């Protein structure tokens, strides 16, 4: 017997809901304070992609992204959540423009943080030029918002990961939280294999994919400041934590990022595999990192102590 719904608190439901498995709408519903979400240009307005019909492909009434306004521990936030189950969460013209508009408003207001729930394979090929340009506009809008004092937090743990231009937008955010299945990269495994051969990257080797692009590696590198367990409540707590930690953007952040990335190349540029990097970071038995449960991994990552929020 399952307990009646009314006996389950929102936090309990969020704790028992996999971020990876949930839809974009469920993620937002459980991430934000109960009942606080208001969508901008929702599916009832049927603002679909004008380009998919050229390819006889089905449209979705929200074009695969949900944007709006809500509350997090009673404070206002803007949110955008990509739906990885529609066209791989890829950026098209309408999809991208919704996020651009949200970021432009956030910049004008200056004080309301923006949460981006990435779940994307990158540019939507059927509208590749419009999607690529949308990503360029979003990157610029993120940086202009940050320069105006806005905290832009990326949450990455969806089934499509955060690939292509999505990875570049994530690199523009003030800080990131990532879960183990939340892969972050530019070229996907299949793209590398298709272009460079299976000797360069075997896309069917799932363990290789996870340890090269997955959340644990990104957390150990410091690319993501918080590692979340795969449930919506953990991401909610991560978002709250990061909003509290992130400081003001300025030239000093970019100067520090240059040093942070150059230092990474000096230390790990010759490493052949993620395990070599983890070993060089001082982790004993680095080959066991992929098997570590979340709590043990978080303790390890905190001990290694790499973060990037002051250098990005």
């Amino acid at each position: 017997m399952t307990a009646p719904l009314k006996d389950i608190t929102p936090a309990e439901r969020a704790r028992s809901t996999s971020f990876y498995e949930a839809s974009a709408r469920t993620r937002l519903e459980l991430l934000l304070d109960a009942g606080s979400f208001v969508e901008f240009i929702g599916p009832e307005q049927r603002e679909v992609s004008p380009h998919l019909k050229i390819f006889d492909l089905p449209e979705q009434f929200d074009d695969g992204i949900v944007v709006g306004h809500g509350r997090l521990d009673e404070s206002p936030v803007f949110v955008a959540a990509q739906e990885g189950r529609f066209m791989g969460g890829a950026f098209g013209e309408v999809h991208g423009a919704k996020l651009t508009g949200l970021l432009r408003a956030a910049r004008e207001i200056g004080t309301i943080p923006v949460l981006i729930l990435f779940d994307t394979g990158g540019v939507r090929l059927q509208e590749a030029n419009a999607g690529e340009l949308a990503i360029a506009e979003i990157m610029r809008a993120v940086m202009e918002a940050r320069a105006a004092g806005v905290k832009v937090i990326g949450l990455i743990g969806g089934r499509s990961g955060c690939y292509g231009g999505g990875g570049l937008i994530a690199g523009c955010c003030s800080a990131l939280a990532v879960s183990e299945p939340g892969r972050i990269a530019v070229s996907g495994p299949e793209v590398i294999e298709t272009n460079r051969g299976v000797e360069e990257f075997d896309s069917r080797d799932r363990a290789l994919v996870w340890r090269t692009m997955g959340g644990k590696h990104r957390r150990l590198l410091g690319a993501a400041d918080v590692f979340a367990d795969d449930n919506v409540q953990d991401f909610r707590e991560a978002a709250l934590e990061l909003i509290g930690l992130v400081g003001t953007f300025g030239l000093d952040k970019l100067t520090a990022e240059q040093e942070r990335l150059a230092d990474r190349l000096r230390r790990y540029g010759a490493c052949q595999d993620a395990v070599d990097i983890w070993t060089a970071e001082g982790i004993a038995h680095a080959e066991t990192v992929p098997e570590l449960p979340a709590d043990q991994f978080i303790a390890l990552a905190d001990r290694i102590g790499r973060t990037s929020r002051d250098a990005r």
Partner: protein
Amino acid sequence: MTLDEILSSLFPDGHEVRNDKGVLLGSTTLRSGANMLVLGVAGRTALGVDEAIRLSGHVLRSIGRDSGPILVLVDSDSQRMSKRDELLGLNEFLAHLAKVLIHADTNGRPTIGLLYGHSAAGALLATGLATRVLVGLPGADPAVMDLPSMAKVTKLSMEALEEKAKSTPVFAPGLSNLAQMGAVHMTWSQDGSLADQLEALLADMPAVRDGRDALGKARGGRLKAADIAERVRDLALQAR
């Protein structure tokens, strides 16, 4: 035009731009007397972590030390597709380069991209598309995704894709298609002096505000982007 021809036509009085394994770094003095920082990717070189960190470092060293506009020359491959680059966090390196260019542009160092050859995907996002004004030269052949790869993903024949490409600029490779989207602001003539055309642009730079969606709408390439962004912005401003 070759890179040397382009540099000579842009900077007839000379320049200090060096090409080191496809990474262009340097500067020049314009006829107006102003200094211009120059960087870029040449020879269809892939943009990986090693190239990106040098380019971003060149710009950061110039901020605070110099003044004047910044020119980004682009004839690249896509981002370097390799295990090593992804292992080291290529997305951060490419984003960092774009961020440095955007920061410079919005803080008194107007940026111009000059797309004179190929470019694609993440490499284009980190260079030309991170500048305020992206100029194309005739013969440039940017491609977000090449048609054979698209055929593979979309499971359509090359013939079918080429047919569709004639009627819609939204997915097909090419300079004119990106121009119609609003990504490429203008195409220069290679018959006239590039120095004259650069000077004319610098004398009449568009505002720092990103107007590419409005440009794409005016040119009929992206009919929805500008309006959707504006509607979301208005709703968000009302919701606070």
